[in-house]
């Protein structure tokens, strides 16, 4: 059992950083939703605020780390041009290899109708993913700056919630397509 360097980085990008971000969302959402005067005591607010500040800051950092490793480490391996213009080197393959990159493998349609995984899936994923860290950073700044005031200010709390859900939704689209594309054409 072994992982290549490329597989290890793909794992760090998707399964560790990306998944941690998506998993942390449920906890953060519950914390934010219940962060109001009628649901928590003064002591509860103090304790919850600390967790919320650490949680949303961590999520913003995770989101940036995920898109940076995805774009600058894993994506270049996905989009390598090694099979030639006709993609002849991909013919007959069941999976990408050292002569046919994942992008070329998908575009060649050699193992079925796969080109849309790149032309729609990857094209959407590589762009929408970058919205998540901006939205998550905005949510984190609001929680860090307004802190306890969020309890009494429903309007601010709703703004943070919308940013938070937006960050999750954009990351979820990217994560879903990342998983499906990796299944169709893994980076090795």
């Amino acid at each position, binding site marked *: 059992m072994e992982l290549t360097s490329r597989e290890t980085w793909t794992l760090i990008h998707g399964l560790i950083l990306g998944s941690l971000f998506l998993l942390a969302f449920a906890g953060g959402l519950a914390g934010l939703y219940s962060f109001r005067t009628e649901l928590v005591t003064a002591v509860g607010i103090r304790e919850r605020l600390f967790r919320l500040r650490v949680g949303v800051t961590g999520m913003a950092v995770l989101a940036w780390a995920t898109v940076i490793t995805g774009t600058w480490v894993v994506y270049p391996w996905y989009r390598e041009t090694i099979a030639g213009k006709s993609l002849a080197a991909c013919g007959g393959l069941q999976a990408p290899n050292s002569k046919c990159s994942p992008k070329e493998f998908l575009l060649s349609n050699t193992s079925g109708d796969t080109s849309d995984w790149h032309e729609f899936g990857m094209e*959407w994923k590589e762009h929408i993913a970058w919205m998540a860290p901006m939205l998550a950073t905005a949510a984190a700044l609001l929680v860090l700056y307004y802190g306890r005031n969020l309890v009494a200010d429903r309007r601010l709390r709703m703004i943070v919630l919308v940013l938070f859900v937006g960050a999750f939704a954009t990351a979820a689209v990217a994560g879903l397509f990342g998983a499906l594309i990796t299944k169709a054409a893994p980076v090795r």
Partner: protein
Amino acid sequence: MNVETTTPSAAPQPVPAEGARPFGPAAAVLLAAGFGIFILGLLTTLAEASTGIKDGLQWNDRVGPLSGKTIIATAVFFGTWALLTAALRRSEPPWKPVVYATGGLVVLGLLMTFPTFFQAFAPD
């Protein structure tokens, strides 16, 4: 200012609120996120429509045009955030226009990064 809290099993307890904070810093980061996302979308569509722009955004050969798009969008996000924070940090801008403007910019950014949309601008 104290905020009264109640729980089903306890009497109301005072929650000491932090000092009132202006909406300016929130407006700054909201609009910055909106601008960052809008610019990402705009560059994505422009790169599809023009080979010259696509080549111009290829700041790194291994990453391709995505390198320029993401670096510029990130710079716009942090740059706009810094500028607007400096301009608005003590002000109390009306929140509705800020929220609507941010929402509009995000929706436009989403639209312009949607493949079916931006691929319609590809030269034949």
